[in-house]
């Protein structure tokens, strides 16, 4: 089986990885790069456990050919913590709200939720917006309530922080 040498950025680091053309990004992340935070669930688009961000947009790594990630920036749950210098506020909130039970869905949900909060850019998301943003990520354990509460909690904190820094700017002027 011939392999291709694929160059991409994974969690901020430039990597080169050899893989056959018919391998998915999920297979490359888990089995070549040992980034096993990204989960392999249904492997066909139904569950969202394999969600990663490609150039900041949540996508399913089980339905992305690894060659489609060439030259692009991939973020996995491992990178989310790194990005925030240890523990991302969403991860902290999931801990405080008990939003992870078995945890299998959590990495995918965190990446969908992070993209939503980034798009909100300091505006507090509504409960409906959170539900809609997570509508491709199945959880078989929690019943979603705590997950949604945790995301809303971070959304609220970010809105407060944004308002405070806007206030400071206005004050300085």
């Amino acid at each position, binding site marked *: 089986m011939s392999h291709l040498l694929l160059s991409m950025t994974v969690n901020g680091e430039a990597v080169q990885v050899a893989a056959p053309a018919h391998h998915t990004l999920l297979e490359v992340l888990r089995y070549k790069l040992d980034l096993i935070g990204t989960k392999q669930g249904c*492997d066909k*688009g139904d569950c*969202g456990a394999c969600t990663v961000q490609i150039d900041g947009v*949540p996508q399913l790594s089980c*339905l992305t*050919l690894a060659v*489609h990630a060439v030259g692009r920036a991939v973020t996995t749950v491992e990178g989310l913590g790194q990005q925030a210098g240890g523990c991302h506020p969403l991860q902290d909130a999931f801990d405080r709200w008990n939003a992870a039970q078995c945890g299998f869905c959590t990495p995918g949900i965190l990446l*969908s939720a992070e993209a939503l909060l980034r798009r909100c850019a300091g505006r507090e998301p509504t409960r409906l917006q959170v539900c809609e943003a997570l509508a491709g990520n*199945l959880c078989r354990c929690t019943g979603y309530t705590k997950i949604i509460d945790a995301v809303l909690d971070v959304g609220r904190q970010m809105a407060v922080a944004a308002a405070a820094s806007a206030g400071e700017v206005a004050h300085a002027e």
Partner: protein
Amino acid sequence: MLRLPQFQVESPDTVEGVVAALQRHAGARVIAGGTDILPNLKHFLDTPPVLVSLARVTALRGLQRDDAAGLLRIGAGVTLTQIAEDAQVRALFPSLAHAAGIVASPVIRNMGTLGGNVNLDTRCRYVNQSEFWRGSIGGGCLKSEGNVCHVVPKGRNCVAAMSSDNVPVLISLDANIVLVGPEGRRVLPLADYFHADGVAHTLARPGEVTVELQLPLPAGPRRARYTKWSVRRSIDFPLLSVALRFDLAADSPHAEVLAAKVVVGVLGAKPRVVTRLDEALGKPLSDPAVARIVSEATHAQCKPLDNVPYEAAYRREMLRVYTRRGVEAMVAEG
């Protein structure tokens, strides 16, 4: 774990390059977002030697209003998220923005393209299964490795369902599809692109790719809506889909209906344009008779099959209900 069959990938950066690559490799298939073809390949419904990727073809990603031609042009590579969020699509073609925005799930809409959605393979409960599953019912069917149909046991023709959410809407809006192939470029009404064979349900010629969908800009006041019934509100394919469009004498739900178009999906391999709606013309859209006439005609002319989940007889009843509710919702929205 579902492994893909082995294949090579070519990633040209022009439409001509894609057409040439398809000609070079017999049995090659196009991959855009991959959200339909990759699950099907993981189920070993096909084993193409080469996938020709559209990922680098930037020319397919335009979405622009062309006032000179009186069209909105949507490139085949535009994602469903982009269509659902685009301000012009939302203002001019709300039923399309709505349909694109309820396909599958947000993550899938970030990946899936309009070209892939229009060319979405037909679906059937007996074919969208693993090879093992198909083997356990005796080795597949006409659309996989077998030679019978489990939906129409004596049938010689596959009746798998055209399950795209956007296709009925695009047809209701009189969309044209632009194809480029070895013999050049051609434009045809999207309604004429499909035919009643679930194994090969489009009239794309070998080596032809979809490059653009064109929507004529609305010429006068109208109301349009898409109604979808699925098991859950997210992730699931439609069990029924009805696209409605009414051209009106004035911009009000109480205005007279000048023209009515109803297109239904998830029947057989071909979407169905409902005919004989003349009785609804000339009446105000808000007249309950319009909802009744349209939903009765839809129910009478469309016969769902046992190709997707839920009993066909029940789906047929629901077709009447969803059509009527669709018209009522348009009136309620004003």
